[in-house]
């Protein structure tokens, strides 16, 4: 069984962020992805593997070639991490607004 890796750890690496930006534009083969970097094909394959395990990339067989494209669901998971943080501030600011409205009417 493969370990489900941490999505945030996956996107913390600049090369992996580069790969995400590339495949966001169009589905690419591992060779085409590797051509954009100065790293060995093996290094890039490793990065692709990590991104796939985190479900940020998806494989697609097209003839004899494997293409990688972005998994919108995985990218949404990243956005969802921010939701609890946003809710925390939204709640605090709602309290601030209610409190200050009362405070204003008193003074």
């Amino acid at each position, binding site marked *: 069984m493969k370990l489900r890796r941490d999505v*945030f750890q996956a*996107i*913390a690496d*600049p090369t992996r*962020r580069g790969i995400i930006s590339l495949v966001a534009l169009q589905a690419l083969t591992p060779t085409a992805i590797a051509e954009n970097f100065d790293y060995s094909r093996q290094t890039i394959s490793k990065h692709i593997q990590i991104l796939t395990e985190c479900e940020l990339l998806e494989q697609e067989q097209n003839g004899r070639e494997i293409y990688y494209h972005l998994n919108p669901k995985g990218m949404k998971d990243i956005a969802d*991490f*921010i939701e*609890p*943080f*946003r*809710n*925390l*501030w*939204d709640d*605090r*600011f*709602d*309290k*601030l*607004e209610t*409190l*200050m*409205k009362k*405070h*204003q009417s008193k003074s």
Partner: protein
Amino acid sequence: MEHKTKIIAEEGKQELLITREFDLPVESLFTAYKDKELFEKWMGTNLLQFEFKEYGNYHFETRSPKGDLMFSGKGAFHTYIPNEMIVRTFEMDVFSLPPQLEFLNFKALTGETSKLTMHIIFKSPEIRDELLKKPFAIGLDMAHNRLENILRKIN
């Protein structure tokens, strides 16, 4: 439903932008930040120290009804212009994350509405993402604690 609070966290950047529009005059919004009692109320915390002046310190902590420390933070005000801006540092010692620098901008939209922009700078993009994940982690912790309490009652 659209949230009134917006968070901009660009990938790979060590900064964060929080914006919110209030149904309050800018003076009132600023007062919520400079008044000790009001700040305690809306933040739902206890201020042990609050010196709203240049290089003044602040320190707050939140405890559970049982008295366990849930959250604690401290920092210093660096400078401020009434109803315009506050520059302060902030450090959440419970999480052992490095301090962050916060630029708070207060802007009147109309006589009765205002906008707050919090620009937060972190030590690194990784630290920023760590912090963003905290409320998520706290949520999980709290769910876990509730579960633990229920189990304790059953046994």
